[in-house]
Protein backbone atom coordinates (compact mmCIF):
# COMPACT_ATOMS: atom_id res chain seq x y z
CA UNK A 1 0.00 0.00 0.00
CA UNK A 2 1.50 3.31 -0.99
CA UNK A 3 1.58 6.04 1.62
CA UNK A 4 -0.53 9.13 0.95
CA UNK A 5 2.15 10.57 -1.21
CA UNK A 6 0.98 13.51 -3.28
CA UNK A 7 1.61 13.05 -7.00
CA UNK A 8 3.09 16.49 -7.36
CA UNK A 9 6.04 15.44 -5.25
CA UNK A 10 7.23 13.30 -8.13
CA UNK A 11 8.20 16.44 -9.98
CA UNK A 12 11.93 16.80 -9.73
CA UNK A 13 11.80 20.38 -8.53
CA UNK A 14 9.62 19.37 -5.62
CA UNK A 15 11.74 16.41 -4.74
CA UNK A 16 13.75 16.19 -1.59
CA UNK A 17 16.93 14.38 -2.40
CA UNK A 18 19.30 12.89 0.16
CA UNK A 19 22.74 11.35 -0.06
CA UNK A 20 24.02 8.99 2.59
CA UNK A 21 27.74 9.23 1.96
CA UNK A 22 29.28 12.19 0.16
CA UNK A 23 32.29 10.75 -1.65
CA UNK A 24 33.44 11.02 -5.22
CA UNK A 25 30.65 9.09 -6.88
CA UNK A 26 27.93 10.91 -4.98
CA UNK A 27 29.64 14.18 -5.72
CA UNK A 28 29.64 13.33 -9.39
CA UNK A 29 25.94 12.63 -9.42
CA UNK A 30 24.97 15.72 -7.48
CA UNK A 31 27.06 17.95 -9.69
CA UNK A 32 25.31 16.51 -12.68
CA UNK A 33 21.92 17.01 -11.12
CA UNK A 34 22.70 20.58 -10.19
CA UNK A 35 24.22 21.46 -13.55
CA UNK A 36 21.11 20.24 -15.27
CA UNK A 37 19.03 22.39 -12.96
CA UNK A 38 16.64 19.59 -12.17
CA UNK A 39 16.80 19.85 -8.42
CA UNK A 40 17.58 23.02 -6.45
CA UNK A 41 20.65 22.69 -4.23
CA UNK A 42 18.61 23.66 -1.21
CA UNK A 43 16.54 20.52 -1.70
CA UNK A 44 19.61 18.34 -1.38
CA UNK A 45 20.90 17.03 1.93
CA UNK A 46 24.06 14.96 2.28
CA UNK A 47 25.54 13.15 5.26
CA UNK A 48 29.07 12.03 5.93
CA UNK A 49 31.02 11.11 9.08
CA UNK A 50 33.51 13.95 8.70
CA UNK A 51 33.51 17.42 7.20
CA UNK A 52 36.18 16.49 4.72
CA UNK A 53 33.83 15.85 1.83
CA UNK A 54 30.92 17.94 3.07
CA UNK A 55 32.70 21.26 2.52
CA UNK A 56 32.49 20.76 -1.21
CA UNK A 57 28.76 20.07 -0.99
CA UNK A 58 28.17 23.20 1.04
CA UNK A 59 29.97 25.18 -1.60
CA UNK A 60 27.48 23.85 -4.12
CA UNK A 61 24.65 25.16 -1.97
CA UNK A 62 23.56 21.80 -0.63
CA UNK A 63 22.71 21.20 2.99
CA UNK A 64 24.85 18.85 5.00
CA UNK A 65 24.69 16.85 8.21
CA UNK A 66 26.59 14.18 10.09
CA UNK A 67 23.39 12.30 10.77
CA UNK A 68 22.28 9.61 8.32
CA UNK A 69 18.87 9.36 9.93
CA UNK A 70 18.23 13.03 9.28
CA UNK A 71 18.84 12.45 5.56
CA UNK A 72 16.27 9.69 5.50
CA UNK A 73 13.73 11.67 7.50
CA UNK A 74 14.01 14.72 5.25
CA UNK A 75 14.24 13.08 1.83
CA UNK A 76 12.04 11.17 -0.51
CA UNK A 77 14.76 10.05 -2.86
CA UNK A 78 17.68 8.64 -0.89
CA UNK A 79 20.96 7.79 -2.56
CA UNK A 80 23.17 5.32 -0.69
CA UNK A 81 26.74 6.14 -1.54
CA UNK A 82 28.87 4.59 1.18
CA UNK A 83 31.77 2.23 0.81
CA UNK A 84 30.62 -1.39 0.52
CA UNK A 85 31.86 -2.52 3.94
CA UNK A 86 30.16 0.44 5.64
CA UNK A 87 26.76 -0.18 4.08
CA UNK A 88 25.36 -2.97 6.28
CA UNK A 89 25.90 -0.88 9.39
CA UNK A 90 24.34 2.16 7.77
CA UNK A 91 21.31 0.19 6.63
CA UNK A 92 20.77 -1.13 10.13
CA UNK A 93 20.94 2.44 11.39
CA UNK A 94 18.47 3.97 8.96
CA UNK A 95 16.08 1.08 8.63
CA UNK A 96 13.63 2.33 11.27
CA UNK A 97 13.21 5.58 9.35
CA UNK A 98 12.62 4.07 5.93
CA UNK A 99 9.00 4.17 4.80
CA UNK A 100 6.90 3.11 1.83
CA UNK A 101 7.21 6.55 0.23
CA UNK A 102 10.99 6.44 0.12
CA UNK A 103 12.84 5.62 -3.06
CA UNK A 104 16.18 4.15 -2.08
CA UNK A 105 18.84 4.16 -4.78
CA UNK A 106 22.09 2.38 -4.04
CA UNK A 107 25.31 3.37 -5.72
CA UNK A 108 27.25 0.89 -3.66
CA UNK A 109 29.39 -1.40 -5.78
CA UNK A 110 28.81 -5.08 -5.38
CA UNK A 111 25.75 -4.93 -3.13
CA UNK A 112 22.84 -6.68 -4.76
CA UNK A 113 19.22 -5.69 -4.74
CA UNK A 114 18.48 -8.87 -2.89
CA UNK A 115 20.82 -7.83 -0.08
CA UNK A 116 19.43 -4.31 0.02
CA UNK A 117 15.86 -5.54 0.19
CA UNK A 118 16.81 -7.98 2.91
CA UNK A 119 18.35 -5.26 5.07
CA UNK A 120 15.55 -2.72 4.55
CA UNK A 121 11.88 -2.92 5.50
CA UNK A 122 9.74 -5.11 3.29
CA UNK A 123 8.07 -3.31 0.40
CA UNK A 124 10.77 -0.65 0.33
CA UNK A 125 11.30 0.69 -3.16
CA UNK A 126 14.89 -0.17 -3.96
CA UNK A 127 16.90 0.54 -7.07
CA UNK A 128 20.52 -0.16 -7.77
CA UNK A 129 22.61 2.06 -10.00
CA UNK A 130 26.11 1.88 -11.40
CA UNK A 131 27.29 5.26 -12.64
CA UNK A 132 30.71 6.19 -13.90
CA UNK A 133 32.96 9.11 -13.20
CA UNK A 134 32.13 11.37 -16.15
CA UNK A 135 28.72 11.94 -14.56
CA UNK A 136 30.55 14.91 -13.08
CA UNK A 137 30.71 16.54 -16.48
CA UNK A 138 27.29 15.33 -17.56
CA UNK A 139 28.78 12.76 -19.89
CA UNK A 140 28.35 9.72 -17.72
CA UNK A 141 27.13 6.23 -18.52
CA UNK A 142 24.81 4.75 -15.95
CA UNK A 143 22.75 1.63 -15.73
CA UNK A 144 20.18 0.86 -13.07
CA UNK A 145 17.96 -2.01 -12.05
CA UNK A 146 14.79 -2.02 -10.05
CA UNK A 147 13.81 -4.04 -7.04
CA UNK A 148 10.54 -5.90 -6.63
CA UNK A 149 8.55 -2.97 -5.23
CA UNK A 150 9.52 -0.42 -7.84
CA UNK A 151 6.97 0.60 -10.42
CA UNK A 152 7.36 2.25 -13.78
CA UNK A 153 6.83 5.71 -12.32
CA UNK A 154 9.75 5.50 -9.94
CA UNK A 155 12.00 4.02 -12.60
CA UNK A 156 11.00 6.76 -15.01
CA UNK A 157 11.65 9.42 -12.39
CA UNK A 158 15.13 8.15 -11.69
CA UNK A 159 15.91 7.85 -15.38
CA UNK A 160 14.70 11.36 -16.07
CA UNK A 161 16.66 12.80 -13.15
CA UNK A 162 19.86 11.06 -14.03
CA UNK A 163 19.70 11.54 -17.78
CA UNK A 164 20.96 14.97 -16.91
CA UNK A 165 24.25 13.28 -16.05
CA UNK A 166 24.59 11.36 -19.28
CA UNK A 167 23.36 8.08 -20.65
CA UNK A 168 21.03 6.34 -18.23
CA UNK A 169 19.45 2.99 -19.03
CA UNK A 170 17.49 0.45 -17.07
CA UNK A 171 18.93 -3.05 -17.31
CA UNK A 172 18.56 -6.49 -15.75
CA UNK A 173 20.69 -6.63 -12.61
CA UNK A 174 23.02 -9.18 -14.23
CA UNK A 175 24.30 -6.44 -16.54
CA UNK A 176 25.52 -4.24 -13.72
CA UNK A 177 28.81 -6.03 -13.18
CA UNK A 178 29.36 -6.02 -16.94
CA UNK A 179 28.77 -2.28 -16.95
CA UNK A 180 31.46 -1.98 -14.30
CA UNK A 181 33.90 -3.82 -16.53
CA UNK A 182 32.91 -1.89 -19.62
CA UNK A 183 32.28 1.61 -18.45
CA UNK A 184 32.84 1.97 -14.73
CA UNK A 185 36.41 0.82 -15.04
CA UNK A 186 36.34 1.53 -18.74
CA UNK A 187 37.00 5.18 -18.14
CA UNK A 188 40.43 4.20 -16.82
CA UNK A 189 41.18 2.21 -19.97
CA UNK A 190 40.47 5.31 -21.99
CA UNK A 191 42.78 7.39 -19.79
CA UNK A 192 45.49 4.81 -20.34
CA UNK A 193 44.94 4.90 -24.08
CA UNK A 194 44.99 8.69 -24.12
CA UNK A 195 48.22 8.72 -22.18
CA UNK A 196 49.80 6.26 -24.58
CA UNK A 197 48.66 8.22 -27.63
CA UNK A 198 50.20 11.36 -26.22
CA UNK A 199 53.42 9.54 -25.40
CA UNK A 200 53.67 8.35 -28.94
CA UNK A 201 53.34 11.92 -30.12
CA UNK A 202 55.95 13.09 -27.62
CA UNK A 203 58.29 10.44 -28.90
CA UNK A 204 57.79 11.83 -32.38
CA UNK A 205 58.58 15.36 -31.17
CA UNK A 206 55.37 17.04 -30.01
CA UNK A 207 55.26 18.81 -26.63
CA UNK A 208 53.41 16.78 -23.99
CA UNK A 209 50.72 19.23 -23.01
CA UNK A 210 49.65 19.81 -26.57
CA UNK A 211 49.77 16.08 -27.29
CA UNK A 212 47.54 15.35 -24.30
CA UNK A 213 44.93 17.89 -25.33
CA UNK A 214 44.89 16.60 -28.87
CA UNK A 215 44.68 13.00 -27.67
CA UNK A 216 41.67 13.84 -25.51
CA UNK A 217 39.97 15.75 -28.31
CA UNK A 218 40.59 12.86 -30.69
CA UNK A 219 38.85 10.46 -28.34
CA UNK A 220 36.02 12.90 -27.76
CA UNK A 221 35.54 13.50 -31.46
CA UNK A 222 35.64 9.85 -32.37
CA UNK A 223 33.16 8.99 -29.64
CA UNK A 224 30.89 11.80 -30.72
CA UNK A 225 30.88 10.54 -34.29
CA UNK A 226 30.08 7.05 -33.10
CA UNK A 227 27.16 8.25 -31.03
CA UNK A 228 25.81 10.68 -33.58
CA UNK A 229 26.14 8.65 -36.78
CA UNK A 230 25.04 5.38 -35.23
CA UNK A 231 27.36 3.65 -37.68
CA UNK A 232 29.22 0.49 -36.84
CA UNK A 233 32.70 1.30 -35.49
CA UNK A 234 34.23 -1.03 -38.07
CA UNK A 235 32.69 1.03 -40.84
CA UNK A 236 33.89 4.31 -39.33
CA UNK A 237 37.34 2.78 -38.98
CA UNK A 238 37.32 1.75 -42.64
CA UNK A 239 36.28 5.25 -43.65
CA UNK A 240 39.48 6.64 -42.15
CA UNK A 241 41.73 4.09 -43.85
CA UNK A 242 42.88 5.27 -47.23
CA UNK A 243 44.58 2.47 -49.18
CA UNK A 244 48.24 2.22 -48.30
CA UNK A 245 47.91 5.24 -46.04
CA UNK A 246 49.08 6.08 -42.56
CA UNK A 247 46.05 4.79 -40.70
CA UNK A 248 46.10 1.25 -42.02
CA UNK A 249 49.80 1.01 -41.24
CA UNK A 250 49.10 2.08 -37.68
CA UNK A 251 46.12 -0.23 -37.31
CA UNK A 252 48.27 -3.14 -38.40
CA UNK A 253 50.55 -2.38 -35.47
CA UNK A 254 47.59 -2.40 -33.12
CA UNK A 255 46.40 -5.72 -34.50
CA UNK A 256 49.89 -7.18 -34.15
CA UNK A 257 49.73 -6.20 -30.51
CA UNK A 258 46.41 -8.00 -30.18
CA UNK A 259 44.87 -4.84 -28.77
CA UNK A 260 41.35 -6.10 -29.31
CA UNK A 261 41.90 -9.27 -27.31
CA UNK A 262 43.66 -7.34 -24.58
CA UNK A 263 40.74 -4.96 -24.23
CA UNK A 264 38.31 -7.87 -24.14
CA UNK A 265 40.49 -9.43 -21.43
CA UNK A 266 40.31 -6.20 -19.45
CA UNK A 267 36.54 -5.95 -19.58
CA UNK A 268 36.29 -9.60 -18.63
CA UNK A 269 38.70 -9.23 -15.71
CA UNK A 270 36.91 -6.21 -14.29
CA UNK A 271 33.51 -7.84 -14.68
CA UNK A 272 34.68 -11.03 -12.98
CA UNK A 273 36.26 -9.04 -10.20
CA UNK A 274 33.00 -7.15 -9.67
CA UNK A 275 31.16 -10.46 -9.43
CA UNK A 276 33.70 -11.84 -6.98
CA UNK A 277 33.58 -8.76 -4.83
CA UNK A 278 29.81 -8.89 -4.71
CA UNK A 279 30.00 -12.38 -3.30
CA UNK A 280 32.17 -11.26 -0.39
Amino acid at each position, binding site marked *: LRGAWPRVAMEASELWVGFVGAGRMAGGLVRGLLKAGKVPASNILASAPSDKNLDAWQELGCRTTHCNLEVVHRSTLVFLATKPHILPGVLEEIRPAVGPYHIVVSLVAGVTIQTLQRLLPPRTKVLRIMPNLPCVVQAGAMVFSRGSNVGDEEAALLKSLLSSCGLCEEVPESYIDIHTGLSGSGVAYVYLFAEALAEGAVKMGMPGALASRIAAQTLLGAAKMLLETGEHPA*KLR*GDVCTPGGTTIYALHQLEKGALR*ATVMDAVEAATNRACDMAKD
Partner: protein
Amino acid sequence: MSVGFIGAGQLAFALARGFTAAGVLAAHKITASSPDTDLPTVSGLRKIGVNFTVSNKETVKNSDVLFLAVKPPIIPFILEEVGPDIEPRHTVVSCAAGVTISSIEKKLSTFCPTPKVIRCMTNTPVIVREGATVYATGTHADVEDGKLLEQLMASVGFCTEVEEDLIDAVTGLSGSGPAYAFTALDALADGGVKMGLPRRLAVRLGAQALLGAAKMLLESEQHPGQLKDNVCSPGGATIHALHFLESGGFRSLLINAVEASCIRTRELQHVADQEEISPAAIKKTLLDKVKLESPSLSVASASKVSLFTNKSKKN
Protein backbone atom coordinates in the same frame (compact mmCIF):
# COMPACT_ATOMS: atom_id res chain seq x y z
CA MET B 1 37.70 -16.31 -81.33
CA SER B 2 40.34 -18.80 -80.39
CA VAL B 3 42.37 -18.86 -77.23
CA GLY B 4 45.81 -20.26 -76.62
CA PHE B 5 47.75 -21.11 -73.49
CA ILE B 6 51.52 -21.17 -73.42
CA GLY B 7 51.96 -23.52 -70.52
CA ALA B 8 49.68 -26.39 -69.60
CA GLY B 9 49.85 -26.33 -65.83
CA GLN B 10 47.37 -25.45 -63.09
CA LEU B 11 46.49 -22.05 -64.45
CA ALA B 12 45.89 -23.13 -68.04
CA PHE B 13 43.85 -26.08 -66.89
CA ALA B 14 41.78 -23.99 -64.48
CA LEU B 15 41.00 -21.36 -67.09
CA ALA B 16 40.27 -23.85 -69.86
CA ARG B 17 38.00 -25.78 -67.54
CA GLY B 18 36.24 -22.62 -66.51
CA PHE B 19 35.76 -21.21 -70.00
CA THR B 20 34.38 -24.46 -71.37
CA ALA B 21 32.10 -25.02 -68.39
CA ALA B 22 30.78 -21.48 -68.76
CA GLY B 23 30.11 -22.12 -72.41
CA VAL B 24 31.94 -18.98 -73.61
CA LEU B 25 34.40 -21.03 -75.57
CA ALA B 26 34.30 -24.45 -77.19
CA ALA B 27 37.15 -26.73 -76.20
CA HIS B 28 38.33 -27.18 -79.75
CA LYS B 29 38.90 -23.43 -79.97
CA ILE B 30 41.47 -23.73 -77.21
CA THR B 31 45.08 -24.74 -77.73
CA ALA B 32 47.61 -25.39 -74.98
CA SER B 33 51.28 -26.17 -75.26
CA SER B 34 54.04 -27.34 -73.02
CA PRO B 35 57.31 -29.21 -73.51
CA ASP B 36 56.45 -31.31 -70.47
CA THR B 37 53.82 -33.87 -71.44
CA ASP B 38 53.92 -35.63 -68.08
CA LEU B 39 52.02 -32.96 -66.24
CA PRO B 40 48.77 -34.28 -64.78
CA THR B 41 47.04 -31.17 -66.09
CA VAL B 42 47.99 -32.16 -69.64
CA SER B 43 45.77 -35.20 -69.56
CA GLY B 44 43.14 -33.10 -67.88
CA LEU B 45 43.24 -30.62 -70.74
CA ARG B 46 43.08 -33.40 -73.29
CA LYS B 47 40.05 -34.84 -71.55
CA ILE B 48 38.18 -31.56 -71.87
CA GLY B 49 38.91 -31.62 -75.57
CA VAL B 50 41.54 -28.90 -75.68
CA ASN B 51 44.11 -29.16 -78.47
CA PHE B 52 47.39 -30.01 -76.83
CA THR B 53 50.76 -29.60 -78.55
CA VAL B 54 54.40 -29.46 -77.57
CA SER B 55 54.94 -26.54 -79.90
CA ASN B 56 54.46 -23.07 -78.49
CA LYS B 57 54.61 -21.70 -82.00
CA GLU B 58 51.62 -23.78 -82.99
CA THR B 59 49.67 -22.35 -80.07
CA VAL B 60 50.50 -18.82 -81.16
CA LYS B 61 49.48 -19.50 -84.73
CA ASN B 62 46.12 -20.89 -83.67
CA SER B 63 45.18 -18.17 -81.19
CA ASP B 64 43.81 -14.67 -81.13
CA VAL B 65 44.03 -14.30 -77.38
CA LEU B 66 47.26 -15.77 -76.12
CA PHE B 67 47.60 -16.49 -72.40
CA LEU B 68 51.11 -16.74 -71.02
CA ALA B 69 50.44 -19.29 -68.36
CA VAL B 70 53.96 -20.13 -67.29
CA LYS B 71 55.89 -19.33 -64.14
CA PRO B 72 57.38 -15.83 -64.03
CA PRO B 73 61.04 -16.84 -64.54
CA ILE B 74 60.04 -18.63 -67.75
CA ILE B 75 58.39 -15.59 -69.32
CA PRO B 76 61.56 -14.18 -70.90
CA PHE B 77 62.26 -17.57 -72.49
CA ILE B 78 58.80 -17.72 -73.94
CA LEU B 79 58.80 -14.18 -75.26
CA GLU B 80 62.13 -14.80 -76.91
CA GLU B 81 60.78 -17.97 -78.49
CA VAL B 82 57.37 -16.87 -79.76
CA GLY B 83 58.13 -13.20 -80.28
CA PRO B 84 58.72 -13.55 -84.01
CA ASP B 85 55.29 -15.14 -84.42
CA ILE B 86 53.32 -12.44 -82.65
CA GLU B 87 51.14 -10.50 -85.06
CA PRO B 88 49.06 -7.35 -84.66
CA ARG B 89 45.91 -9.48 -84.26
CA HIS B 90 47.26 -11.14 -81.13
CA THR B 91 46.38 -10.03 -77.65
CA VAL B 92 49.04 -11.29 -75.30
CA VAL B 93 47.73 -11.83 -71.80
CA SER B 94 50.28 -12.44 -69.12
CA CYS B 95 49.12 -14.03 -65.91
CA ALA B 96 52.59 -14.15 -64.40
CA ALA B 97 52.90 -12.66 -60.95
CA GLY B 98 55.28 -9.76 -60.76
CA VAL B 99 55.96 -9.47 -64.49
CA THR B 100 55.28 -5.94 -65.64
CA ILE B 101 53.58 -4.87 -68.83
CA SER B 102 56.54 -2.76 -69.75
CA SER B 103 58.97 -5.66 -69.47
CA ILE B 104 56.80 -7.72 -71.80
CA GLU B 105 56.28 -4.87 -74.23
CA LYS B 106 59.98 -4.15 -74.23
CA LYS B 107 60.79 -7.76 -75.10
CA LEU B 108 58.12 -8.08 -77.78
CA SER B 109 58.82 -4.76 -79.42
CA THR B 110 62.04 -6.17 -80.83
CA PHE B 111 59.76 -8.34 -82.96
CA CYS B 112 56.52 -6.41 -83.29
CA PRO B 113 56.23 -2.61 -83.18
CA THR B 114 52.94 -2.32 -81.26
CA PRO B 115 52.33 -5.50 -79.29
CA LYS B 116 48.95 -5.71 -77.55
CA VAL B 117 49.68 -6.71 -73.99
CA ILE B 118 47.34 -7.12 -71.07
CA ARG B 119 48.48 -8.11 -67.64
CA CYS B 120 46.12 -10.06 -65.49
CA MET B 121 46.09 -11.60 -62.07
CA THR B 122 43.57 -14.31 -61.45
CA ASN B 123 43.27 -17.20 -59.04
CA THR B 124 42.59 -20.91 -59.04
CA PRO B 125 38.86 -20.84 -58.26
CA VAL B 126 38.32 -19.90 -61.89
CA ILE B 127 38.16 -23.64 -62.18
CA VAL B 128 34.77 -23.59 -60.46
CA ARG B 129 33.88 -20.27 -62.03
CA GLU B 130 34.37 -18.32 -58.83
CA GLY B 131 37.65 -16.71 -59.72
CA ALA B 132 38.82 -13.23 -58.76
CA THR B 133 40.56 -11.51 -61.64
CA VAL B 134 41.97 -8.09 -62.26
CA TYR B 135 43.64 -6.82 -65.41
CA ALA B 136 45.57 -3.82 -66.61
CA THR B 137 45.89 -2.92 -70.26
CA GLY B 138 49.20 -2.17 -71.93
CA THR B 139 50.18 0.71 -74.16
CA HIS B 140 48.81 -0.71 -77.38
CA ALA B 141 45.83 -2.63 -76.09
CA ASP B 142 42.49 -1.01 -76.96
CA VAL B 143 39.46 -0.67 -74.77
CA GLU B 144 37.88 -3.50 -76.82
CA ASP B 145 40.80 -5.79 -76.13
CA GLY B 146 40.36 -5.19 -72.42
CA LYS B 147 36.62 -5.69 -72.63
CA LEU B 148 37.11 -8.94 -74.53
CA LEU B 149 39.37 -10.28 -71.82
CA GLU B 150 36.97 -9.02 -69.20
CA GLN B 151 34.15 -10.92 -70.84
CA LEU B 152 36.20 -14.10 -70.89
CA MET B 153 37.29 -13.79 -67.29
CA ALA B 154 33.87 -12.66 -66.07
CA SER B 155 32.55 -16.00 -67.28
CA VAL B 156 34.69 -17.67 -64.64
CA GLY B 157 34.17 -15.28 -61.75
CA PHE B 158 34.59 -11.67 -60.82
CA CYS B 159 36.69 -9.53 -63.13
CA THR B 160 37.54 -5.87 -63.10
CA GLU B 161 40.11 -3.52 -64.57
CA VAL B 162 42.69 -1.89 -62.31
CA GLU B 163 45.77 0.27 -62.51
CA GLU B 164 48.82 -1.92 -62.93
CA ASP B 165 50.41 -0.71 -59.70
CA LEU B 166 47.68 -2.42 -57.70
CA ILE B 167 48.25 -5.86 -59.17
CA ASP B 168 50.87 -6.92 -56.64
CA ALA B 169 48.45 -6.14 -53.84
CA VAL B 170 45.78 -8.17 -55.62
CA THR B 171 48.23 -11.05 -55.82
CA GLY B 172 48.70 -10.86 -52.07
CA LEU B 173 45.00 -10.78 -51.39
CA SER B 174 43.05 -12.85 -53.89
CA GLY B 175 45.89 -14.47 -55.80
CA SER B 176 47.21 -16.18 -52.72
CA GLY B 177 43.90 -15.91 -50.91
CA PRO B 178 42.59 -19.39 -51.72
CA ALA B 179 45.66 -20.86 -50.02
CA TYR B 180 44.86 -18.94 -46.84
CA ALA B 181 41.32 -20.25 -47.06
CA PHE B 182 42.46 -23.85 -47.59
CA THR B 183 44.71 -23.54 -44.55
CA ALA B 184 41.88 -22.11 -42.50
CA LEU B 185 39.52 -24.85 -43.67
CA ASP B 186 41.99 -27.56 -42.81
CA ALA B 187 42.34 -26.16 -39.32
CA LEU B 188 38.61 -25.65 -38.87
CA ALA B 189 38.09 -29.27 -39.86
CA ASP B 190 40.69 -30.27 -37.28
CA GLY B 191 38.70 -28.36 -34.71
CA GLY B 192 35.57 -30.20 -35.73
CA VAL B 193 37.34 -33.53 -35.57
CA LYS B 194 38.75 -32.72 -32.16
CA MET B 195 35.26 -32.08 -30.93
CA GLY B 196 33.99 -35.36 -32.38
CA LEU B 197 32.98 -34.83 -35.99
CA PRO B 198 34.02 -37.27 -38.72
CA ARG B 199 36.63 -35.67 -40.97
CA ARG B 200 34.59 -35.64 -44.19
CA LEU B 201 31.67 -34.00 -42.50
CA ALA B 202 33.93 -31.50 -40.77
CA VAL B 203 35.52 -30.49 -44.07
CA ARG B 204 32.15 -30.20 -45.75
CA LEU B 205 30.65 -28.09 -43.01
CA GLY B 206 33.70 -25.86 -42.69
CA ALA B 207 33.78 -25.18 -46.41
CA GLN B 208 30.07 -24.48 -46.51
CA ALA B 209 30.38 -22.09 -43.56
CA LEU B 210 33.05 -20.04 -45.34
CA LEU B 211 31.19 -20.20 -48.63
CA GLY B 212 28.00 -19.04 -46.98
CA ALA B 213 29.70 -16.26 -45.08
CA ALA B 214 31.43 -15.01 -48.22
CA LYS B 215 28.16 -15.08 -50.11
CA MET B 216 26.38 -13.17 -47.34
CA LEU B 217 29.07 -10.52 -47.38
CA LEU B 218 29.00 -10.14 -51.15
CA GLU B 219 25.23 -9.83 -51.18
CA SER B 220 24.97 -7.55 -48.17
CA GLU B 221 25.39 -3.82 -47.80
CA GLN B 222 26.61 -4.37 -44.29
CA HIS B 223 30.15 -4.13 -43.04
CA PRO B 224 31.72 -7.50 -42.15
CA GLY B 225 32.07 -6.19 -38.59
CA GLN B 226 28.33 -5.77 -38.42
CA LEU B 227 27.72 -9.21 -39.90
CA LYS B 228 30.05 -10.63 -37.28
CA ASP B 229 28.14 -8.86 -34.53
CA ASN B 230 24.91 -10.30 -35.85
CA VAL B 231 26.24 -13.79 -35.12
CA CYS B 232 27.54 -12.98 -31.64
CA SER B 233 24.81 -13.32 -29.07
CA PRO B 234 25.80 -11.85 -25.69
CA GLY B 235 27.82 -14.27 -23.62
CA GLY B 236 27.36 -16.92 -26.26
CA ALA B 237 29.56 -19.47 -27.95
CA THR B 238 30.68 -17.35 -30.86
CA ILE B 239 31.97 -14.38 -28.92
CA HIS B 240 33.96 -16.74 -26.72
CA ALA B 241 35.52 -18.25 -29.80
CA LEU B 242 36.24 -14.87 -31.36
CA HIS B 243 38.07 -13.80 -28.24
CA PHE B 244 40.45 -16.68 -28.85
CA LEU B 245 40.99 -15.60 -32.41
CA GLU B 246 41.73 -12.05 -31.31
CA SER B 247 44.11 -13.25 -28.61
CA GLY B 248 46.04 -15.15 -31.23
CA GLY B 249 46.36 -12.10 -33.37
CA PHE B 250 44.21 -13.64 -36.08
CA ARG B 251 43.59 -10.37 -37.82
CA SER B 252 47.22 -9.30 -37.84
CA LEU B 253 48.28 -12.69 -39.18
CA LEU B 254 46.02 -12.23 -42.15
CA ILE B 255 47.26 -8.70 -42.70
CA ASN B 256 50.83 -10.01 -42.47
CA ALA B 257 50.06 -12.71 -45.02
CA VAL B 258 48.65 -10.36 -47.62
CA GLU B 259 51.56 -8.01 -47.06
CA ALA B 260 54.15 -10.79 -47.34
CA SER B 261 52.70 -12.14 -50.55
CA CYS B 262 52.56 -8.68 -52.09
CA ILE B 263 56.13 -7.86 -51.07
CA ARG B 264 57.40 -11.19 -52.35
CA THR B 265 55.67 -10.55 -55.67
CA ARG B 266 57.49 -7.26 -55.94
CA GLU B 267 60.80 -8.98 -55.12
CA LEU B 268 60.21 -11.49 -57.88
CA GLN B 269 59.44 -8.69 -60.27
CA HIS B 270 62.70 -7.06 -59.37
CA VAL B 271 64.53 -10.30 -60.06
CA ALA B 272 62.81 -10.68 -63.38
CA ASP B 273 63.57 -7.12 -64.37
CA GLN B 274 67.22 -7.86 -64.02
CA GLU B 275 66.76 -10.38 -66.79
CA GLU B 276 68.73 -12.94 -64.88
CA ILE B 277 67.47 -16.39 -64.11
CA SER B 278 68.56 -18.56 -61.26
CA PRO B 279 68.85 -22.10 -62.63
CA ALA B 280 67.11 -23.34 -59.52
CA ALA B 281 64.04 -21.44 -60.66
CA ILE B 282 63.72 -23.49 -63.79
CA LYS B 283 62.49 -27.03 -63.77
CA LYS B 284 65.12 -29.49 -64.77
CA THR B 285 63.26 -30.73 -67.84
CA LEU B 286 62.88 -27.26 -69.20
CA LEU B 287 66.48 -26.46 -68.43
CA ASP B 288 67.60 -29.57 -70.27
CA LYS B 289 65.53 -28.58 -73.25
CA VAL B 290 67.08 -25.12 -73.19
CA LYS B 291 70.56 -26.56 -72.94
CA LEU B 292 69.81 -28.82 -75.90
CA GLU B 293 68.76 -25.93 -78.07
CA SER B 294 71.38 -23.48 -76.89
CA PRO B 295 74.54 -25.41 -76.12
CA SER B 296 76.51 -22.21 -75.87
CA LEU B 297 74.41 -21.03 -72.94
CA SER B 298 76.45 -21.62 -69.82
CA VAL B 299 74.69 -22.45 -66.62
CA ALA B 300 76.64 -21.96 -63.44
CA SER B 301 75.16 -23.93 -60.63
CA ALA B 302 75.86 -21.44 -57.91
CA SER B 303 75.43 -18.12 -59.67
CA LYS B 304 72.73 -16.53 -61.69
CA VAL B 305 72.86 -16.76 -65.45
CA SER B 306 71.94 -13.98 -67.78
CA LEU B 307 69.64 -15.31 -70.42
CA PHE B 308 70.68 -12.88 -73.00
CA THR B 309 74.47 -12.82 -72.85
CA ASN B 310 74.66 -15.57 -75.45
CA LYS B 311 71.83 -14.75 -77.74
CA SER B 312 71.19 -17.82 -79.82
CA LYS B 313 67.92 -17.70 -81.64
CA LYS B 314 66.27 -20.99 -82.33
CA ASN B 315 65.59 -21.48 -86.01
